[in-house]
């Protein structure tokens, strides 16, 4: 067979099999890691969600775990907490990032880099370290930093993390002030990418600064806003490290997020089955939310 083909074709064939072989070799490790540590766990999560883990043996329980989750009032409370946390943190954080980016872009390159670095710094500090500092800032004693600050404005002493009235607010404030770094960098990149001719023609029409902002900047960076919105919402739905470290979900579950609920179910009470059922329900909810966001914001985003 082979001898009938021309030498060039044979060579090409040999090249192709070589490409084939090296292609598989180059992706081998990522593929193995993916198969063992992602694909298998995903499939296992479905199986586990239909089981109940007991000290001596593990039983199939059908949809019991799902039923229990959907009957569990704490599950709904933690979902509500997550929605409140996300619903306040994400829009405010994006608005703040947008404002800061708009202020940074007219500056010289050096000043731009300085402020980018300054605003990004909290994002690289370890979450554990930051949670310690914030815990002390929120010290409930009158000598606590935030209490002294609000006292200047005549506000009474607050038990920031210890009262169910202020605990969620405290976590939100912390998130607002330490997680806008990345969005600012991304917004600045998008703003600098806007072509100058848009502004020039607006200037000729005598447009004001706010008109330019409203009719040029906002529509043109909409894809960036949608990207940040979707990724922040997805991230925010899963986040629970600060709640875990600072309030433990308390007081009275006022700061129990879905992520924390699942973590506790699994590693505090060792109810793996129910934890997996909850995680899969969370995945479905995130999927639906993401879908709705794309529908509402139009599908002009490309990745």
């Amino acid at each position, binding site marked *: 067979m082979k001898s009938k083909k021309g030498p060039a074709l044979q060579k090409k064939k040999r090249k192709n099999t070589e490409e084939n072989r090296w292609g598989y070799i180059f992706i081998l490790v990522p593929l193995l890691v993916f198969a063992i540590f992602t694909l298998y766990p995903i499939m296992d999560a479905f199986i586990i969600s239909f089981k109940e883990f007991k000290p001596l043996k593990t039983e199939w329980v059908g949809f019991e775990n799902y039923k229990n989750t959907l009957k569990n009032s704490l599950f709904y409370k933690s979902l509500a907490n997550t929605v409140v946390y996300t619903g306040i943190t994400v829009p405010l954080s994006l608005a703040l990032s947008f404002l800061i980016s*708009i202020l940074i872009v007219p500056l010289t390159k050096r000043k731009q880099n300085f402020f980018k670095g300054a605003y990004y710094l909290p994002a690289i500090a370890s979450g554990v370290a930051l949670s*310690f500092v914030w815990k002390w800032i929120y010290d409930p004693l009158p000598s606590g930093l935030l209490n002294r600050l609000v006292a200047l404005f005549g506000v009474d002493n607050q038990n920031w993390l210890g009262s169910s009235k202020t605990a969620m607010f405290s976590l939100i404030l912390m998130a607002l002030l330490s997680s806008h770094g990345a969005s600012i960098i991304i917004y600045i990149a998008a703003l600098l990418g806007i072509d100058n001719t848009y502004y020039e023609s607006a200037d000729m029409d005598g447009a004001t600064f706010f008109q330019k902002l409203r009719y040029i900047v906002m529509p043109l960076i909409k894809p960036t806003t949608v*990207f940040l919105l979707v990724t922040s919402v997805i991230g925010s739905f899963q986040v629970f490290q600060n709640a875990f470290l600072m309030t433990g979900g308390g007081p009275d579950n006022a700061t129990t997020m879905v992520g924390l609920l699942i973590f506790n179910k699994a590693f505090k009470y060792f109810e793996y089955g129910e934890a997996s059922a909850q995680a899969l329900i969370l995945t479905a909810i995130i999927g639906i939310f993401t879908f709705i966001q794309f529908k509402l914001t139009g599908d002009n985003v490309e990745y």
Partner: protein
Amino acid sequence: MALYKSYSKNEKGRQYFRTGWIMLLLTILAIVTLFPIYYMIMSSFGAPVESGASSYSLLVKNPTLESYQFFFDYSKYSFRWIVNSFLVAGVSTLANVIFATAAGYAFSKLRFKGNKLLFSLLLLAMMIPYQVTQVPLYILIVNVLRMDNTYAALIAPGLVTAYNVFLAKQFIGSLPTEIMEAAKMEGCSQPALLIRIVMPLSKTVMAVMAINTFMNNWNTFFWPLLVTKTENMQTIQVGLKNFSFANTTYFAPMMAGATVSALPMFILFFALQKYFLEGVTVGAVKG
């Protein structure tokens, strides 16, 4: 920037005024943002005494390193935590950069059967919430493979992440294919092509991946918390949590520990700020 009104030469004063208030506003916001970090570092130089009202000041009067001493004296493994973190983050970074670059090259430039299918399967990994894989992964590592409390357990699940493969594929895909074709004509083998042609051209994305991976592994908390059982295997973040749990009233030493856990990243950030910031946009802007 023509978003802002441009001033003519004889309006210099108004331009300075505008730049002035922009700088003022940005500085105030930056101070609020950076305050916790300032407060952490500054307080770490306080004396290691149990805290009372007096320990809350914005400036330490008699700076001392005693709180750092206190932190390192707490456990005989304090230094080991830092070494462990460096080891885990270092090995993960090296593995991620090498394997992700090779895979990114294969997925973007090599033709092999199942290329597209396998890549989209890999993308799936990025969309699944961490919570879903957390429990099965824990059972796999601890109960099935019995790898708990080993470096392998800390490193293996993150040996190469789907996100890094995605980044590398996007970047290498934008390199001109002609260069690689020419090298192949000259008789260059695929591994040589990867090492001598693709990798030198991909330095930027490799640097970005290295920094992101190192930072994520250095700062990660829950996974090491789950799979380490003894103090000698813990990373600095887990050790720090344990330290704070045992010393709830020792404010300055806690801040010293927090500073120790954050400092390597700060140093890296000031040295390589360009790549850090590039790393933020590279994943967001369409490659």
